[in-house]
């Protein structure tokens, strides 16, 4: 459809050397996604609004000891109220959610040797949803029986998540904290499965982030990370099509340069002690409007790894 045309158009565009500089960077009307754990000092949870509309928020937060990017936080704070509006800015995430959960269910049931036909296969397992946002992932995991902890760097997100989770007795047991992965590592918390979906592309230092994820994973536990590939195709779809043409995501949600390729992700996870065992892609079918799992990892992909020691 539109996608092939834009792949062609953007590949011609990309052929010029200076394409990188003409990427939209001025995020003045920024309303973005994010939900990042980080070690950034407490002011992170404070009012982020004044951080918003300034130009060139691109510089990596070199002063921050953590993996967090400040402008990312600002983006997300601004639209925190709309997390549970399935037609709002988070609509793509809502649509993708069942597919992500299907992957999690299948790999984690196999990993922990649980019955996949059980209604609550994760009973007794401790999961952590890093960058939980409004709890879109945490709630279904809790319904599947897991003991879920959800963490997010933005206080507003945690509040929204708590309010929504209380509406269902099965999800009201979720432990939500406004904190970061690094802080939890300091507290020496351990979880059977550490899940960080659509988070790592918003992080300043991916390698450090992965080290924290690994440290949170218990012995023989599982780590699951999902993100967007850094490829020509993903530029065309996730940036150009999704943000500018179809306007599924607010402009500037993603920075193409922050995307990781599957190889890079595998490498940094390996260095952190996590062996990637399975990878799958998410593919969107414009005719049915549904996402599905596939072998195509050129745009959205998810990786499941295990921690041996």
């Amino acid at each position, binding site marked *: 459809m539109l996608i092939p045309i834009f792949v062609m158009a953007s590949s011609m565009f990309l052929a010029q050397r200076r394409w990188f500089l003409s990427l939209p960077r001025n995020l003045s009307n920024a309303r973005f996604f994010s939900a990042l754990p980080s070690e950034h000092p407490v002011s992170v949870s404070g009012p982020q609004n004044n951080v918003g509309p300034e130009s060139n928020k691109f510089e990596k937060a070199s002063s921050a000891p953590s993996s967090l990017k400040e402008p990312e936080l600002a983006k997300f704070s601004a639209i925190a109220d709309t997390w549970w*509006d*399935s037609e709002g800015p988070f609509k793509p995430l809502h649509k993708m959610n069942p597919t992500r959960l299907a992957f999690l269910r299948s790999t984690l049931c196999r990993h922990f040797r649980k019955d996949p036909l059980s*209604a609550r296969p994760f009973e007794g397992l401790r999961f952590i949803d890093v960058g939980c946002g409004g709890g879109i992932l945490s709630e*279904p995991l*809790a*319904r599947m029986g897991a003991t879920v902890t959800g963490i997010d760097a933005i206080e507003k997100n945690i509040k*929204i998540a708590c*309010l*929504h989770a209380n509406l269902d007795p099965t999800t009201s047991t979720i432990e939500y904290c406004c904190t970061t992965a690094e802080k939890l590592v300091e507290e020496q918390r351990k979880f059977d499965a550490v899940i960080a979906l659509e988070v790592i592309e918003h992080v300043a230092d991916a390698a450090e982030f992965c080290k924290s994820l690994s440290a949170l994973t218990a012995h023989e536990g599982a780590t699951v990370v999902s993100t967007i590939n850094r490829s020509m195709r993903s530029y065309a779809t996730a940036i150009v099509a999704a943000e500018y043409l179809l306007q599924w995501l607010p402009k500037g949600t993603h920075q193409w340069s922050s995307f990781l390729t599957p190889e890079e992700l595998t490498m940094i996870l390996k260095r952190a002690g996590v062996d990637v065992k399975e990878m799958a892609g998410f593919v969107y079918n414009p005719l049915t409007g549904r996402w599905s799992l596939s072998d195509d990892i050129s745009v959205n992909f998810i990786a499941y790894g295990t921690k041996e020691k």
Partner: protein
Amino acid sequence: MNRIFATKAGSDVYRLRIPWRPFSNDAAPLLSSQNAGNPEKGSEAKQYDIAIVGGGMVGLALACSLASRPLTRHLNVAIIDSNPALGGKHFIKKEDLPDPRVSTITPATISFFKDIGAWQFVEQHRHAYFDKMQVWDYTGLSYAKYNARDADKEVLGCVVENKVLLSSLLSRVQETVLPKKIYPSRLNSMSILPNSSSSEVDSTLSMTALFTHGRLAKLELEDGNSLYAKLVVGADGGKSRVRELAGFRTTGWNYSQNAIICTVEHDVENHCAWQRFLPSGPLALLPIGDKFSNIVWTLSPKESSEFKSITEDNFLKAVNHALDYGYGPHPTPSILGSSDLFSWLKGGQGVNLGFGDASTLSSVISEGIAVGTDIGEVSLLKKYEADRKPANVMMMAVLDGFQKAYSVDFGPLNILRAAAFHGAHHISPLKKSIISYASGEMRLPLFA
């Protein structure tokens, strides 16, 4: 009667754009309760996952289907139906005369019944498979004979009395471990509030509070009981109370047709189904087993009231005449026993569509639970709608088309119909497709 209408909820911290409106794309009035604050009278209201209003064939089929799936067999189900037969074991004696109300079950429905474990009960009672069909119209110009072997099948369908279907499903549901409760009452009122957030952060909400926040529907029954449910399923028939209460709009028109149904006994077994298309409507004969056949004769209201008062002999004469009268070749059976493609399509399809709906709904719920979705969520029900709406609309369009095509006795149109008929009869791929579609196995390519 507590008829309650909706008002938009006040400001919320966040709210879903679409409060609980599972089946409508028209604006259904939201129901807000004036009783929300009232304490429950009488006994404690209980909470269920699914409330099935209507314990008829389709409602019970849904319950059986949920019971047969590993992911849904733990769900708490309430079945609301005032039919006393649902309370205890329902015995059908073999000597009982067949009920005139029968349904033609398509092969797709037969396999659904087998999946849910109810078909074994049906086979213990009177039922009749048929593998042949003969159709012709009043002009005699068109005649078609369909055989199951044309489509590489063994049977084209099975004719079963409704009471047999009902008792089979009831027996099956009673032997499953699905946590169910039958409420022998009628639905009085139903309230669903728009979704809103909770203002309390650290507490789990009570049932009433969950209802106030739009997470549960509240059902009030005529005997004073109340119950809460995450999902309400209306399986209460054409004059559905649930549909009325939920305010779903329907489109429909009157066919000005009544049907006379009766059972006839004959000397010889019959496995063929006959139908003749007359201007006022089709006359069909369906074998129902044990040398009985069921007659469905669709007539205009005037004719049908005339027929109600004549004697049995005269009625039989009239039926024979209607079947024979005409021109052209058609086999005259010594037995009255037939069914045909279209009565099978028309008469049978109604309940088969219902069973198809039940099957799809239970698989959608099962898939939802697999990925941890809350079963009251709109997205789940939208999936159901996307699957079943086209199928239902398509089938209705096809049947309506037939009805309209046959109601006009006009020369050129008759010839056109005859040509279509002959085409369908002689072009085997087309014939195969028609049989597959009517068997419920094939969806028209448009919706594949």
